[in-house]
């Protein structure tokens, strides 16, 4: 190690330039892979943040003897192993939300009260908290909606009340529907932010507990109408859709199978996500390949530097042999030097890649802000494994590049080396 460091120290400029080549190459490698990972994370974030990966959407089959998707069915589904929660899916557009004179037309979405909307709900709630247990009429507002209703900060909205005005058709006993209006006063329990890259219209959403949503007029009209079209009575209709959330994504397949066995249709996002992941793996590999080519070119620089070093230190190699160095010792010596250059370049590359990515991200976000985008875009992801792999890969490529010079050094004839003055 002493000799290796000494050798490198003597030709600082040359070694520095060689390490710079490795730095640029590994910097390119790490930032390109980080970009692919960052984009992948951005694309997956909404699914993950909203817990959509562990979700199965279910709907009843068509037909006379199709099982009804009602509370009883949901209770049976919820009892399945691996299921966290099962609840009817309620989405109603055109609900008016009012706070004094401030009004907005929003979509109401029903979410279960008993467990947080998603695993990472706390990360999304920027003020207040998730629904409280019990049956208090509460709501969660998206940040843009809170702003639209005149709240200066999300915190200002928490604890205040807003009025909801909903209207729709409520199914009667037989084949009649009644147009109903309903005014509802709800307390704002919390304000949530949307994951980045979510469509902007999602900002006009109010989340209500499922039990509150059940009282919204029109919520049960669609399945009742479907039953009537099928020639069955409108009464006894279940829900049009329901959402089942499982604890782990590994629970998805068995739960989905069990639900299908109960006679319901199922749909998951995991299969779509898997396709997306496959695409990103291809992108990762392509970008890593480009980075690797750069690193291999830098490796040629290492070969060159070490070959010159072998020539310059010809006599030193002879001395080492005279005082007891084996061929293996000399191979190790030059491979160590190559490894040190690789490590310096690898670490430098990580720093360079990180810095370049940071600057690029800064510029992209500045541009995005100028275009009216409010969310911060994390374009690059630098997981620890990527940093470690970059440094390791850089060292491995460098050591491989050092093999030929190292064997040249080992083959030096000590007599000829010592004769050279």
């Amino acid at each position: 190690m002493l000799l290796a460091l000494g050798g490198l120290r003597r030709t600082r400029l040359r070694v520095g330039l060689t390490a710079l080549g490795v730095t640029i190459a590994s910097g390119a490698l790490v930032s390109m892979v980080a970009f692919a990972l960052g984009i992948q994370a951005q694309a997956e974030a909404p699914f993950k943040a909203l817990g959509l990966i562990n979700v199965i959407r279910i709907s009843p089959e068509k037909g006379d003897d199709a099982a009804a998707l009602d509370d009883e069915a949901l209770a049976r589904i919820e009892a399945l192993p691996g299921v966290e929660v099962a609840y009817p899916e309620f989405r109603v557009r055109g609900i008016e939300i009012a706070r004094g004179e401030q009004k907005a037309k929003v979509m109401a979405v029903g979410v279960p009260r008993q467990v947080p909307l998603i695993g990472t709900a706390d990360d999304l709630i920027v003020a207040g908290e998730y629904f409280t247990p019990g049956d208090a009429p509460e709501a969660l507002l998206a940040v843009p909606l809170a702003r639209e209703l005149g709240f200066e900060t999300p915190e200002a909205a928490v604890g205040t009340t807003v009025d909801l005005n909903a209207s729709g058709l409520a199914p009667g006993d037989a084949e009649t529907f009644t147009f109903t209006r309903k005014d509802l006063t709800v307390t704002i329990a919390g304000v949530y932010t949307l994951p980045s890259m979510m469509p902007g219209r999602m900002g006009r959403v109010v989340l209500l507990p499922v039990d509150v949503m059940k009282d919204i007029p029109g919520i049960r009209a669609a399945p009742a109408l479907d039953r009537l079209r099928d020639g069955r009575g409108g009464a006894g209709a279940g829900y049009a859709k329901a959402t089942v959330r499982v604890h782990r994504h590994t629970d998805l397949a068995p739960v989905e199978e069990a639900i299908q066995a109960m006679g319901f249709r199922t749909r998951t996002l995991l299969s779509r996500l898997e396709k997306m992941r496959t695409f990103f793996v291809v992108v990762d590999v392509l970008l890593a390949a480009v980075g690797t080519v750069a690193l291999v070119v830098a490796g040629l620089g290492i070969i060159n530097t070490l070959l010159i070093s072998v020539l310059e230190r010809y006599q030193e190699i002879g001395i080492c042999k005279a005082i007891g160095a084996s061929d293996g010792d000399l191979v190790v010596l030059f491979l160590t030097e190559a490894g040190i250059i690789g490590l310096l370049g690898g670490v430098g590359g990580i720093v360079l890649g990180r810095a370049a990515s940071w600057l690029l991200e800064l510029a992209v976000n500045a541009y995005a802000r100028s275009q009216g985008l409010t969310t911060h875009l994390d374009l690059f992801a630098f997981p620890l494994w990527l940093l470690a792999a970059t440094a390791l890969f850089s060292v491995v490529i460098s050591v491989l590049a050092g093999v030929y010079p190292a064997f040249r050094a080992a083959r030096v004839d000590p007599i000829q080396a010592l004769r050279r003055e």
Partner: protein
Amino acid sequence: MGDAGNGETFVEARGLRREYRVGPSTVHALDGLDLDVRRGEVLAVLGVSGSGKSTLLHLLGGLDTPTSGSVLVDGRDLATFTSRERTVYRRTVVGFVFQSYYLVPSLTAAENIALALTFQGTVGAERRRQATEALRRVGLEARAGHRPSQLSGGEQQRVALARAIVHAPPLLLADEPTGNLDRSTAEDVMALVREIHHDLGATVVLVTHDQEMASRVADRIVHLRDGRLTKEEGAAP
């Protein structure tokens, strides 16, 4: 002079021939040389430039292999050694001192000595201790942290000597060790060689063209000319 050896042959060269091809011609560096070196003696090999002195030393030190003939050290024929055995032989049996010192310029005096120990597998605190002890033996403890460029010629040769003897080799091979030194420094270095020889009991083969120096330190002197021994003188007075 000191011990003249115990009479037992330690190094034995028989019919030693070493030829080099230089372009179309063949150079006979050694031409059928026979030589016995007794255990514990200081043998000086005298000769002019090109007489084959250094080639002889390289063959005795296992750095080179003869075109024909054999070198036996302690009864073992170097020609039968594998590459690995030759390396071990150089590590454990031989200590080399060269005219041009051949210290590694990027390393300090102590590190140069430690390097030899590293190749021998000595590491850590023991390596430091032995390197310091070797420097103390040549009187350069205070210069342990100096690089060769910060040392005088005499000091560099003393560091080289310390490096050569740090593992207490039974055979010390010195190739014109005073060739680059002024008279007074050369005498200091040779006195050190004698002292080390006395302390370690090593067999010393000293190659030089300095007759006076050879007479002063050697137990026995042999003259080499055109790759052959031409004359042998007994122990110096």
